[in-house]
């Protein structure tokens, strides 16, 4: 619902082009009823339910800024001849007053922090000062406050995404949740996987909240709500503390103006991008390609070893593992390898589709 009540005192000169109150429903998330938000902040429904929030709504500029910031860390690290650099920043937003169980991220602000395993902010006086300065400046333009943090996991492209919380991330997030949640400001953590985003041509974000230590997490439930009994699998996907946090669904929202502009952008300019670029040919993806093939090969080999050394029984010529205990592990190893090789194949099919199209259209035959 567009709230136009604040517009009362607008004393804009006739000569000045003003932004007329917008009534488009797409714009509803850009404003909010302050009284209603105050009430939500007082009621604090998230204090009763550790899994209260189910969804995170992200604005297009916030999504773009996070991905570009994460990518600048990758480029910076590579340019210096080393590993990609981890980055972090703050998010601006609020709990959604119109839909229960949702958080809204309207904007993000990068912090001058980088390095491996981003450390807790408060340690660094310089960063603390930066945040105070940023907060002061934002008070002149925004009504919302900091409601979370994002950081990047620029690790090599693997079968799965690197959007998870490490144990350091969990203690950072927990101390923030403890400080902010009770004061009506539920705190959010977002993790960006920039290398996978580039390889997959889609933004890879994970949105998380941490359980308070006294909460008994459901048995064998991983952050995505699945029941996984194989310990190596859940640790690989979600880190050592896989049962201390949960992930939320991510949704994007866009204002009417932004979607008009995006429409023009995609229709008129991005077609050149589709024909002009082929992600499999980008040097970053090329360099990692053999490594990823190697990863899949390792996984396949692991299956082999397992099948040969397990107490296998030959059934009509097929070699099948017999021991019940080793079964889940073996299954997941094979499906992991299958998943990894399919992903590589799909990336290459798409790339070759573009390449062949271009060869037919532009080549002289």
């Amino acid at each position, binding site marked *: 619902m567009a709230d136009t009540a604040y517009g009362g005192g607008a004393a804009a000169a006739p000569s000045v*082009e003003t932004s007329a109150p917008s009534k488009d429903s797409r714009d509803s998330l850009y404003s909010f009823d302050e009284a209603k938000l105050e009430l939500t902040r007082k009621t604090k429904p998230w204090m009763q339910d550790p899994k209260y929030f189910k969804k995170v709504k992200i604005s297009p500029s916030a999504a773009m800024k996070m991905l570009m910031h994460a990518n600048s860390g990758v480029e910076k690290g590579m340019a210096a001849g080393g590993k990609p650099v981890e980055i972090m920043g703050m998010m601006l937003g609020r709990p959604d007053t119109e839909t229960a169980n949702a958080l809204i991220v309207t904007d993000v602000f990068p912090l001058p922090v980088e390095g491996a395993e981003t450390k807790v902010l408060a340690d660094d006086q310089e960063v603390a000062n930066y945040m105070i300065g940023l907060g002061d400046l934002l008070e002149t333009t925004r009504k919302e406050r900091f409601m979370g943090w994002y950081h990047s996991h620029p690790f090599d492209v693997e079968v799965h995404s690197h959007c998870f919380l490490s144990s350091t991330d969990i203690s950072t997030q927990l101390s923030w949740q403890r400080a902010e949640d009770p004061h009506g400001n539920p705190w959010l953590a977002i993790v960006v996987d920039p290398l996978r985003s580039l390889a997959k041509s889609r*933004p890879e974000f994970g949105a998380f909240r941490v359980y308070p230590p006294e909460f008994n997490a459901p048995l064998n439930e991983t952050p995505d709500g699945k029941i996984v009994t194989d310990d190596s699998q859940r640790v690989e996907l979600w880190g050592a503390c896989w049962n201390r946090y949960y992930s939320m669904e991510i949704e*994007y929202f866009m204002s009417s103006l932004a979607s008009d502009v995006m429409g023009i952008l995609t229709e008129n*300019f991005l077609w050149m991008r589709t024909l002009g670029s082929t992600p499999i040919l980008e040097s970053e993806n090329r360099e990692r390609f053999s490594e990823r093939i190697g990863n899949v090969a390792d996984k396949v080999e692991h299956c082999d070893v397992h099948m040969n050394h397990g107490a296998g029984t030959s059934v009509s010529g097929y070699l099948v593992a017999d021991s019940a205990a080793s079964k889940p592990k073996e299954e997941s190893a094979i*499906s992991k390898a299958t998943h990894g*090789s399919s992903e590589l194949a799909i990336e290459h099919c798409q790339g070759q589709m573009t390449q062949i199209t271009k060869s037919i259209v532009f080549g002289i035959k």
Partner: protein
Amino acid sequence: MADTMEVDAGVEEKKGEEQKVPATAASAPGKKGNNIMLHPLTVITISDHHTRVSTGGGAQEAGGRVIGLLFGSQNGRDVSIYDAMEVACTAVGANGLELNEALVEKQKNLYTAVYPMYEILGWYTVGTEVTELDLGIQRQMTKFNSSPLFLLMNPSPAQGSKELPVLIHESESHMLDGVAQSTFVQLAFQLETTQAEQISVEHVAKATPTDGISSIDLHAGAVSTSLRTLLARIEILRRFLEETKKGNISVDYPLLRQISSICNQLPTMDGAQFSEEFMREFNDSLSVAYLASVQKSAGSMNDLADKFMTAFGHRRPI
């Protein structure tokens, strides 16, 4: 790696304003003749800012003026506008407005602490035409950039419009009856996207559920749309060439030269070395696809064998 794309009609410099004016002490080195590159993030950020202000979601009163800074880099003749940042202004008199220079300075310091390679390139506002007020703010901006760019975004682009509702200007000083006068001059610009930007634009723009649709299908769709757009553009050029040949329109030599240079680039796409590399890549991809399907079959076979064992495993094979 960034791609550039020429923005179509509508942003050409106004021919009438190109006459040379004797430089005065006040006139700054112009950006004309530079390649101005605009990134989508800037446009999206300004859209968000506009919507926030117009719906009353910002700290300003609803319907207030939308003003902010443009950040980016300038290397030689290449000027890239990467990002935009909202900045609060101070009201002056009944309907005047000026930049709060302390806040601009603060914003600049915060921004460059994270992105030291970027600087303030200019400022933006939202509206349908340039006003007197804009010249005042432009003058203030010269404290932060010797020749600030001024980006004006139209908040209500015409339905079905194919042009980005953005105009980029710089100011020029003219001597009129011995008095220095500033005017805005429109500059041509190109749109530039980084891969990270493209990914977010494409993904957020078509934030439609894609569950159950193969990503290969989606890609094929994108390729086919792109080809159709390319065809439409080529058709325009072809008509232009035909009309030129018939003498129905005046000859545009620079444009003809550009078309000719593009056509000259096409043969380099072939060549024996290229085909060999191309085929090698293609065969590599085929191998990957083949191995992946073998792997997938093996996986399915394993699943089947497991199921078989679960169902009949207690029986020993005869």
